[in-house]
């Protein structure tokens, strides 16, 4: 697969002296949906802003569709659309005027039919003559997307596109993002909603303290790091874990009404059989069994927390 964005040894030190990015290397494949996850202040927006030309890099280089973002900025930027994290619009401008402006600004000749299509796709068509200040927050966010799409970009950055957006609209946006991908647009999104990454992304990158901690395909990530949990709902409450079971990774939950067993789904022997046999041998009755795979969220929290732990240990 070919990289449509290639970030090489990128670092950013802000004027305040704060280092927001530390030697970041990242390749985004053409046509994929890439989710960038990370806690507040991890450096997601900084990374995106550098690629889009809003923030100057301190060190390193980025290629967008093969063009250096600094030396060959015209070619690089004309391929990129950006929906920034903060909604910023001209209150007195009309929806139509604003999207047309964006298209012109990116050096494209007027194309009313295309802009109409974009506005219709984003359910903004009936608002085309409204002043922006008369739009709701969700509409404004969709307008920002329309502006970003106005010049038919090959690469689309969505910096927390669904922050403050209701559930229905979020579904619509996901739908739209998928449609764009089908049209061959590469999408890079940041989000705090892990379910979003889980639902949408082909690959996931995790960034913390300005460093890329991990990049992998979502499915593999969830498999590899995916811990599974088996919950055994007991027939009668238990005060403590009985001695015969004490050598297994078990915890007692729900006021002694359930045993929770953590295991690795990828292991040859998961230990489930042994657990059940032991329960049987000791006549511990149970009503129900319930297993679940840990979510991306668990993985994420785990990684970020471990990162913190590592740091704490180092100091």
């Amino acid at each position: 697969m070919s990289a449509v964005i290639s970030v090489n040894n990128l670092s950013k030190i802000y004027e305040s002296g704060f280092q927001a990015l530390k030697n970041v290397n990242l390749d985004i494949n053409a046509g994929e949906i890439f989710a960038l996850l990370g806690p507040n202040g991890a450096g997601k927006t900084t990374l995106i802003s550098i690629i889009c030309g809003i923030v100057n890099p301190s060190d390193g280089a980025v290629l967008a569709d093969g063009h250096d973002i600094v030396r060959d900025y015209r070619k690089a930027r004309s391929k990129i659309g950006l929906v920034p994290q903060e909604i910023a619009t001209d209150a007195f401008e009309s929806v139509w005027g604003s999207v047309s402006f964006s298209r012109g600004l990116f050096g494209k000749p007027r194309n009313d039919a295309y802009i109409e299509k974009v506005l219709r796709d984003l359910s903004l068509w009936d608002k085309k003559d409204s002043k922006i200040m008369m739009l709701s927050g969700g509409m404004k966010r969709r307008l920002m997307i329309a502006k970003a799409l106005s010049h038919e970009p090959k690469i689309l950055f969505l910096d927390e596109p669904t922050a403050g957006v209701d559930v229905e609209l979020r579904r619509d946006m996901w739908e739209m993002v998928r449609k764009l991908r089908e049209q061959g647009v590469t999408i890079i999104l940041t989000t705090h909603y892990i379910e979003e990454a889980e639902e949408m992304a082909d690959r996931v990158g995790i960034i913390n303290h300005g460093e890329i901690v991990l990049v992998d395909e979502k499915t593999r990530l969830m498999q590899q790091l995916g811990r599974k949990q088996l919950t055994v709902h007991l027939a009668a409450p238990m005060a403590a874990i009985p001695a015969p079971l004490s050598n297994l990774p078990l915890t007692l939950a729900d006021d002694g009404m359930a045993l929770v067993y953590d295991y690795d789904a990828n292991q040859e022997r998961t230990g489930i059989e042994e657990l059940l046999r032991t329960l049987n041998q000791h006549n511990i009755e149970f009503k129900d069994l319930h297993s679940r795979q840990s979510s991306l969220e668990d993985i994420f929290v785990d990684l970020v927390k471990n990162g913190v732990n590592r740091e704490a240990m180092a100091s």
Partner: protein
Amino acid sequence: MNFYSIRAIYKFEMARTWRTLMQSVASPVISTSLYFIVFGSAIGSRMVAIDGVSYGAFIIPGLIMMSLMTQSISNASFGIYMPTFSGTIYEVLSAPVSALEIVIGYVGAAATKSTILGLLILITARLFVDYQVQHPVMMLAFLVLTAVTFSMFGFIIGVWADTFEKLQIIPLMIITPLTFLGGSFYSIKMLPEFWQTVTLFNPVVYLISGFRWSFFGVADVHMGVSLGMTLVFLLVCMLAVWWIFKTGYKLKS
């Protein structure tokens, strides 16, 4: 050159002008009319002619220059300050446009607006006094050059300012005094010799003098010197703007 980008910025800025038509065109026209009534008709009728030009006519170039400078600065400084303030500047920064194209768009629109305004004042003046323009081409050249120079200066202020206060302070504290002391309402020859020399350090003197020469063929400073100085100011502003974009000063972190 990216024609579509320049046009987009230019059109956007001009649209802003039409939206705020009353504020951007009407109010300077009204205030200059007041100047004509007070200085031109009321006081002017008791003044002797300067260099053979009636006082009412004498102040026209000065008044136009004064409005041209303050309006160029305020148009251009607002034009670039507002997007940095509201955050919409992200779009311009992320667009495939060069610094030159951005400046042509913003400064071009601001200069267009103030040039139109200068011409409007010129027409308004006709209602109060009779005058003739001896060198119309040079008059237009001075008008446009000054509009562009001060729009560029305004652009620099707009980038530099991070509060509304700073946006207002330079026009108020520097430009207004300089224009008042730059011979808008008098010939600097009317000053004592010492102050005449001091005045020559005021750049506005050259602009007003050259502009007045294009009307009446008489001037405080030689017209060639005026034109030369006007071009020097333009160049200084261009260098400053170039430096802003080269370093990303205040526009990019």
